[in-house]
């Protein structure tokens, strides 16, 4: 069965992260999961780990659009300084589907999708 080997969630809302964790685990579609409540923690982590041997590039980043200090786009820009854009695939998570956001997302080649929270098993499957 096809699986994600590593999914990374960057969302400042802990209950949402926890819920997504449960959905991922129950779906059996994900091997490893990594959650960050703080955008800076995620950036620090990849800054530190990306140079180490054996670093695994995540299959997908799920990035919340609204976080303190950064919005989703700004976080992707910071991440682009650390990880090669061509290998980064990101899904933007939002609570409200705002047309302007989708238009802006076209400027970011690493964005492969937009999802209104919460994630469901079907949504996960669609990104496989």
């Amino acid at each position, binding site marked *: 069965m096809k699986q994600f080997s590593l999914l990374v969630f960057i969302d400042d*809302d802990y*209950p*949402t992260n926890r*819920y997504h964790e*449960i959905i991922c685990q129950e779906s059996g579609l994900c091997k490893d999961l990594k959650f960050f409540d703080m955008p800076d923690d995620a950036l620090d982590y990849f800054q530190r780990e990306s140079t180490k041997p054996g670093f695994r590039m995540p299959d997908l980043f799920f990035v919340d659009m*609204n976080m303190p200090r950064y919005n989703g786009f700004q976080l992707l820009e910071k991440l682009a300084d650390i990880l090669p854009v061509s290998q980064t695939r990101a899904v933007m998570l939002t*609570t*409200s589907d*705002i*047309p*302007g956001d989708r238009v802006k997302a076209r400027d970011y080649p690493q964005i492969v999708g937009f999802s209104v*929270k*919460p994630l469901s098993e079907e949504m996960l499957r669609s990104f496989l």
Partner: protein
Amino acid sequence: MSAPNYTRYQQYYLWAIAITAGLILANQVVIQHYLAQKRDDARLINISGRQRMLSQRISALAHSYVIQPSSFTKKELDRQVHEWEQMHASLASGALSQGLISDLPEVQQSLQQMDFQVSMASDLLKTLEDLEVQQLHELQLNQQTFLLGMDQVVLDIERASDSRLTRIMIVEVLLAILALIVLALEFTFIFRRIIRALTQQNRALEHSNQMLEQYAYASSHQFKEPIQNILNYTGLLRRSTSKRQTEEQLAFVDFIEEGAEQIKQKTEAILQLSLIQSADLRLQSLDCATLIHEVAELYQQRLSRLGGSLTINPMKAKLEVDEERFKELWDRLISNALKFIGEDQQPEIEITGHSDGEHFIFSIRDNGIGIAPQLQGEIFGMFKQLHPRHYFTGEGVGLTLSKAIVEKHQGKLWLESHPGRGSVFYVKLPMK
């Protein structure tokens, strides 16, 4: 920001208008008074000229009578002399003018001096039959003196009239300067102040409007996440432990879920409303009939299941609309037409459109339960529902959002309806 004091502005305005009107009136009074005097002066000059002419005529008539007496010449001469005397008396008494001219001492004096000439001429002419050449000569000399006197009178009147004109011109210039000063003062102390205050209030209103929009957007956006969390976890709660839960506990979870779902939808509605109001429309010239057909297509399955029908009459409607919002509008209107249908009734919906030259007017008619006239104003209000929740689904936002979309397009949305006889909703959009 002080509270707007409209009463004070009104007073200011009234004062400004009253002062300006007062100036105009004063100006008119001066001008009219002067014009009336000028008319009197002109009449006096005219009469004086006529008196001179009469005296010459009398002289000539007397001459011709002495040379060749005729009853016609005599009668004519008497008439002229009579008129001449009368006019002189009127002039001298000042009865012909209300002005000051005939009261001028020099004019009075000249006229009095001429009394002698007039009575002398009159006396001479009474004994016309006995007049001799010598007396004719005297009469002529007398007339000569009279002419000179009248010349002086006319000259005096003209001089006085001219000096009055000069005075009026000065008064007019002063009045104009006063009017300009008053206008400048009104502008400085009244109009500029009002403009400044109104501009400030306008800015404050715009700001508070923006704040409200932002507030609606931000708060609804912020509410969504926690509400979604409640829903996420009630879902998990029901699933994971249902075996160990009593029916009552499950019912409680249902209530929590239902409440959260309502908040979620209402929050979404507030968010949508603020987005409709604040975001700019992406206007394109589109065939609206095609867009309505596209939306109607989504309802075909449901309609055939219910055994109902939806007719869209042919229309030529190429209008400047935002495609997404326009389709949303018709989605909401059709959904609304389908929703309020009596039990066991088959929905029949008819959509029409026509142009009145300036606007395009769409209508959507249903055979639903209708709305009493006294309740029609309420249905466009946010979260307004005329029926208990369990009776018809929805959050009472469809028509609010529809109205907002139509108004954002500079249009108008209204309805005609009677209970039991269905409703017709009208959408009027500018054609530009």
